[in-house]
């Protein structure tokens, strides 16, 4: 800039005012020589006018990562590694945790809540990538109660305004089925019980799809349905040898926990298969029951689309007619003639009050009970 002087090194007049870490300097734009420097600190008199700022009003809170937040972020990363999730999931989960931590309600929450929050962030990340992680699995890993988990999960989804897709059933089937220890012979698993993984997976998937179509999955926990479907698929692949094995025994030798509703899901699935079998002429004559239908699951699944349509087109119609009252008028609501301003008779109120004699008896009984509980155990 003209009139500002010349650079002592190269003699150019192109001097630029620039700041180096908030210290203003005059720099030559040709050779980079620093001509003059600004003042680095305030003068003593200036500092005298400064006022104290409390920590809560400064930006320190936002810039620093508190110890509990650091701990939480470490827990998130550890959890992702334990679950062997892909590395991108870790970053997303950490980002969600940080985002949640910015809300004062979360910052001030109890430690137990922050622990569960770790699980929630990981779960949301998995759901968004269609990774089949159940809430039950997370709760077992965190040693948390499902109710506590559910309340914090709902709260955080609402707080962060997230769009969390539902659990991907197909993926869950694949991971859950693969965890069954039936694909290799072992001391606990005899040879006739060993099954090929691919065949079992594909058949289980078809059975789960069938269950989904026939209203067995909506509103229910997904896992017991998959357990029941896996069992049926396994049985149907070699019915001669395996019909004798029960669901409980099956889960035991496969080294998988048997969820409680699985047996009722199994019965429901068998009922659906029986209804489908009714539509096939060559099966109708066999008069199948819940055990013998297992032998024909392969055929039923092969034609499942048309069979379901046939079986439940008539089926739902009959359910509807059974459910409706013949004249399709809704019953009128009971008309209450209460106005809210009626007279309240004294006798009605008196029935709720104790007579003086009753009051005395009650007080005596209470005192006796107090005395009994306060006396220590008799020697």
């Amino acid at each position, binding site marked *: 800039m003209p009139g500002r002087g010349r650079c002592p090194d190269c003699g150019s007049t192109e001097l630029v005012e620039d700041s180096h870490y908030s210290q203003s300097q005059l720099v030559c734009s040709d050779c980079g020589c620093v001509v003059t420097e600004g003042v680095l600190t305030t003068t003593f008199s200036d500092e005298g006018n400064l006022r104290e700022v409390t920590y809560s009003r400064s930006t320190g809170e936002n810039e620093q990562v508190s110890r509990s937040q650091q701990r939480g972020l470490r827990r998130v990363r550890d959890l992702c590694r334990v679950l062997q999730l892909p590395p991108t999931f870790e970053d997303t989960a950490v980002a969600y945790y940080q985002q949640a931590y910015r809300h004062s309600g979360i910052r001030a929450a109890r430690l137990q809540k922050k622990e569960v929050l770790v699980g929630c962030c990981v779960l949301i990340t998995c759901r968004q990538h269609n990774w089949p992680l159940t809430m039950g699995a997370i709760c077992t890993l965190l040693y948390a109660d499902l109710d506590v988990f559910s309340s914090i999960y709902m709260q955080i989804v609402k707080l962060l305004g997230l769009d969390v897709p539902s659990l991907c059933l197909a993926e869950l089937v694949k991971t859950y089925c693969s965890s069954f220890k039936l694909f290799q012979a072992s001391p606990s698993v005899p040879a006739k019980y060993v099954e090929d993984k691919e065949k079992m997976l594909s058949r289980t998937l078809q059975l789960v799809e069938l269950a989904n179509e026939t209203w067995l999955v*909506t509103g229910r926990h997904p896992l017991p349905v998959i357990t029941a479907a896996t069992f049926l698929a396994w049985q149907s692949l070699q019915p001669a040898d395996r019909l004798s094995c029960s669901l409980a025994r099956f889960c035991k030798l496969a080294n998988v926990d048997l969820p409680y509703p699985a047996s009722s899901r199994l019965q429901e699935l068998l009922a659906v298969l029986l209804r489908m079998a009714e539509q096939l002429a060559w099966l109708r004559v066999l008069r199948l029951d819940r055990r013998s239908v297992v032998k024909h699951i392969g055929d039923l699944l092969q034609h499942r689309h048309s069979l379901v349509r046939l079986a439940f087109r008539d089926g739902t119609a009959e359910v509807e007619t059974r459910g409706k009252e013949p004249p399709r008028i809704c019953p009128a609501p009971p008309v209450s003639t209460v106005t*809210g301003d009626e007279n309240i008779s004294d006798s009605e109120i008196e029935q709720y009050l104790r007579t003086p004699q009753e009051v005395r008896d009650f007080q005596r009984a209470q005192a006796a009970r107090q005395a009994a509980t306060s006396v220590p155990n008799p020697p």
Partner: protein
Amino acid sequence: MASAPRPERVPRLLAGCLPLTRPTPTVGLVSMEQEETYLELYLDQCAAQDDLAPPRSPLFNPVAPYGMYILNASNLDTALNSNPEVKEASGDFSSVDLSFLPDEVTQENKDQPVISSRHETEENSESQSPQSRLPSLSEQDIGLGLNSSSLSNSHSQLHPGDTDSVQPSPEKPNSDSLSLASITPMTPMTPVSECCGIVPQLQNIVSTVNLACKLDLKKIALHAKNAEYNPKRFAAVIMRIREPRTTALIFSSGKMVCTGAKSEEQSRLAARKYARVVQKLGFPARFLDFKIQNMVGSCDVRFPIRLEGLVLTHQQFSSYEPELFPGLIYRMVKPRIVLLIFVSGKVVLTGAKERSEIYEAFENIYPILKGFKKA
């Protein structure tokens, strides 16, 4: 079913005033703009000739029993528009100047012809290109679609024998209902709904009242038979009465919460009875600021619902976690009601301060649920 337009159902008013080049129209060859034109012109005619009741009655015949239309002015518009014969003539009216009409009217009418021509296109196998987009439009708007399906149902119901006999009868009531519909507000006071008359039943009412005096809870628990008081567990007396069957929480500050009543009046009566009991125990209890805080209703739509589909399309309002709870939690914005929707078709509505909010919420949700009904 083929709908050969019946000449006698052509409004005589239209036939007289508007030039028709083709007496037997082929329905379906008219464009949307022309339908709007007809409607507006027809409405002008109606407004100009208020005393002509007979020409209106044919319009009311094909639609549902007029009883349903008394209070709902929007249905009135639909009824006027749904007569297919209105859209008969060819494009003689493209030169008509519509600049004096407000924007909202034209906007509404753009929707209304969609409804009526939907059941037209259902009846006719061939449809021209301007109308080919109408079914998709109405399918997207489930609410209007529902309206049209109910209209077309009643249309087919009343067709067989009734046109001639019904024509003259609803004249007077129709003109009355017309004027009534034009002045009454839109929200019906009775919960008559287009959806087969399902009415949510109230199951629980929570109300609060201020007794305006400090209470000695120990004394109340001692002298009242129907009271329980456990200060270590909860700092209030829990009192119950048999008629109406309710429970009250009475606090030492004099505030009281009354729960369990099945109607607003019952809740008020019960609260008064509790106040009387407290009075009889010697406290100067009053009955101030009675307010209903929450109302819970429930009903059954009688068909199974695909909750997974509902959560996909209404993601911003719904929350469905089968691992946690078997029902879908739907948070409606207007009115501000939370609905619990179950796969069996049972619906629980809660969060209302007024009975009408529950009915309105159910009216809003029913068409959405019908969209997820699987036969």
